[in-house]
């Protein structure tokens, strides 16, 4: 079992999906054990791959670019050869570990969370399909397979957001997520075609090599990089495509934890990290990524302050984190982005699963109806606190190390750095707010809080494991930890060999960020725990700003207006054209004309024998005349 056998990883859950779809209803427990066994096998199989990778790294050192294994798929002699294959290097391995582990945790968690659901078997089938397509996405060695998997994860996201399809809001949210990401996906597809036209290959490594050798025309490269970024922005919920992610919270909470926090939404980050050499070849490419990430991170941070739905707050914090990852990519620190992705997957999945535990126990998800759950649900409370403060960036939790790495990377860029510093206390503040409103203070609905209790084992174990990982994963940045795990130099050097971005801890930056985070937490504590009337007073005082935040910068209304005014108006014109021209004139018109002609002609048939006989005689005579004329 080496790196070249990595294709097994997506194949196992895909097989589980096939079995569940075909025979699910006949299996005991609807086959949930099969889905979990498949993803567990995939997770276990990542370890030999890591071992193989580290030994290859030790052998080849910096020249190692990854192991590939592909089979011919489709061949048009002369101009087109499509291959199907996997490519394994350090980025892939990070994504594999994250994807398979979080998927495993979430599926175990779902055993209890989804119990009694009317579509329990289908839920596990879709989860398996998602795991398979996500693993295929990160393993793909060519853009076509990547695009295929990219669309599959989008499809699974759609299916799982709309899991409670009897709710209109869930169906609408699923549609919104699918269509919004589609907008970006079209860009990705065009970019892939453009790159293929100039290089004649779909292979990711080959395209990068060709671009670096200058074989792609500058304007084509620029266009494809921008379109590629568009695809990444759609998937990773970057401004202005971020609107789908908060709505995607209509899905079951474990789905949010897996798809909309840990794996699918970071596919955009992964894509940009994978093709970063292309971005660096284009003037302004990294700056564009940086600007988008910064804008997204900064805007979403404030929304977390006013949202009252527990899952929506976490969703905005996810957008915030995704923005941070784009910033890291933009400043040329992909290792920092991947590190953040790695740790973010654990603490954000933890937050979502914690929120799921709260929702499971109380059947409420508005923080105004929660509160006072700390003593009732100690395990959930503790693990949620770990996740929340990791997200806030409290020192020595996973989020702290990763976020500091991004800050250090952005140190050169004063504007980006100051904006990042500004967003830190805001992030800390809304995570504190969320924690306080959910777990501390008086229960706002005592009847609900009285019956709340900690989750059963299947839900507690993933929570505890993820909390443990959130406590320790940040440490992989250190050389000593890395060496113990088999990659000397820590994860930074593992991900990008030979790049100058091995982990560098800057005490000054860490002190500054810790102070800001502490400031945010204290401010949050003061505002929502000590003087709970303060936020209301602030909302009253700055009513326009508060209204703007509650309405999400009016972006949803703006999009709705555009859809109403432009899309629907255009559709109405087309509908009129279709109704009147195509349907009434074209289709019905030709039928009516034929019918009317038939009506006129039917009177030719008199039913009288002599008329027919006369017609025959005249016909024969006419034919004879014609024949004679032509002959002479």
């Amino acid at each position, binding site marked *: 079992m080496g790196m070249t056998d990595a294709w097994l990883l997506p194949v196992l859950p895909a097989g589980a999906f096939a079995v569940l779809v075909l025979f699910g209803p006949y299996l005991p427990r609807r086959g949930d054990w099969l889905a979990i066994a498949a993803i567990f096998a995939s997770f276990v199989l990542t370890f030999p791959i890591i071992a193989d990778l580290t030994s290859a790294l030790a052998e080849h050192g910096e020249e190692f670019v990854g192991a590939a294994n592909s089979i011919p798929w489709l061949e048009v002699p002369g101009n087109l050869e499509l291959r199907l294959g996997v490519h394994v290097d350090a980025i892939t391995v990070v994504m594999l570990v994250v994807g398979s582990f979080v998927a495993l945790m979430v599926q175990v968690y779902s055993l209890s969370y989804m119990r009694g659901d009317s579509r329990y078997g289908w839920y596990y089938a879709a989860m398996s399909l998602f795991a398979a397509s996500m693993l295929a996405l990160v393993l793909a060695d060519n853009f076509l397979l990547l695009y295929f998997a990219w669309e599959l994860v989008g499809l699974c996201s759609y299916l799982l957001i709309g899991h409670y399809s009897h709710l209109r809001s869930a169906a609408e949210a699923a549609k919104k997520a699918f269509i919004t990401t589609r907008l970006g996906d079209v860009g990705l597809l065009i970019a892939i075609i453009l790159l293929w036209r100039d290089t004649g290959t779909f292979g990711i490594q080959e395209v990068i090599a060709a671009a670096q050798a200058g074989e792609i025309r500058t304007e084509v490269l620029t266009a494809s990089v921008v379109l590629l970024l568009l695809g990444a922005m759609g998937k990773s919920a970057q401004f202005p495509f971020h609107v789908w992610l908060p709505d995607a919270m209509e899905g079951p909470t474990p789905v949010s934890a897996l798809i909309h926090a840990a794996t699918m939404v970071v596919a955009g980050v992964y894509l940009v990290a994978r093709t970063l050499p292309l971005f660096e070849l284009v003037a302004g490419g990294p700056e564009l990524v940086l600007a988008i990430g910064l804008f997204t991170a900064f805007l979403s941070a404030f929304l977390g302050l006013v949202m009252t739905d527990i899952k929506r707050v976490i969703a905005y914090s996810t957008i915030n984190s995704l923005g941070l990852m784009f910033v890291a990519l933009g400043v040329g620190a992909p290792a920092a982005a991947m590190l953040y992705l790695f740790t973010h997957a654990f603490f954000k999945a933890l937050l979502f699963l914690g929120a799921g535990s709260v929702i499971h126990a109380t059947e409420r998800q508005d923080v105004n109806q929660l509160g006072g759950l700390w003593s009732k649900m100690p395990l959930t409370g503790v693990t949620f606190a770990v996740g929340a403060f990791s997200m806030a960036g409290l020192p020595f939790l996973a989020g702290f190390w990763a976020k500091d790495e991004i800050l250090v990377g952005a140190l050169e860029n004063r504007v980006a750095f100051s904006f990042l510093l500004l967003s830190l206390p805001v992030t800390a503040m809304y995570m504190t707010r969320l924690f306080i409103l959910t777990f501390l203070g008086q229960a706002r609905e005592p009847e609900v809080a009285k019956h709340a209790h900690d989750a059963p084992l299947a839900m507690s174990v993933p929570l505890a494991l993820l909390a443990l990982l959130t406590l320790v994963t940040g440490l992989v940045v250190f050389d000593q930890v890395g060496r113990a795990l088999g990659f000397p130099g820590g994860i930074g050097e593992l991900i990008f060999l030979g790049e100058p971005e091995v982990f560098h801890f800057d005490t000054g930056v860490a002190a500054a960020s810790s102070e800001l985070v502490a400031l945010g937490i204290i401010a949050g504590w003061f505002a929502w725990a000590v003087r709970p009337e303060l936020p209301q007073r602030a909302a009253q005082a700055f009513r326009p700003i508060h209204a703007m935040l509650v309405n999400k910068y009016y972006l949803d209304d703006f999009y709705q207006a555009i859809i109403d005014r432009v899309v629907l108006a255009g559709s109405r014109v087309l509908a009129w054209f279709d109704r009147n021209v195509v349907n009434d004139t074209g289709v019905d018109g030709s039928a009516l004309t034929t019918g009317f002609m038939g009506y006129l002609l*039917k009177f030719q*048939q*008199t*039913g*009288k*024998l*002599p008329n027919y006989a006369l017609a025959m005689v005249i016909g024969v005579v006419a034919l004879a005349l014609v024949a004679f004329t032509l002959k002479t």
Partner: protein
Amino acid sequence: MEAVAQQIPLEHFLVLSAILFSLGVYGVLTRRNAVLILMSVELMLNAASINMVAFAAYAAPERAVVIGIVFAVFIITVAAAEVGLALAIILRVFRNRGTANVDEVDQLKW
């Protein structure tokens, strides 16, 4: 046969045949009784038969003689069958509608 060919030219047979045929057509177009129409049709068929036999007699003796006569025999056979069929139809129509006048049998239309 050759004697006939020497005494009467071919044109006479053709003219006779044309006259018979025209009479048949006239009968078919003007008569209203189905039986009479049938008789006119027989006239037309016989005109065609005369043509066949005449051409057979005047054509090159070594190849066409028999073919034309065989055609005439076939026409007579087919005509006999046709008359049998047509008279049966007319009989049914008469039984059903009490008339053999074709003007009154005009149901087969729109």
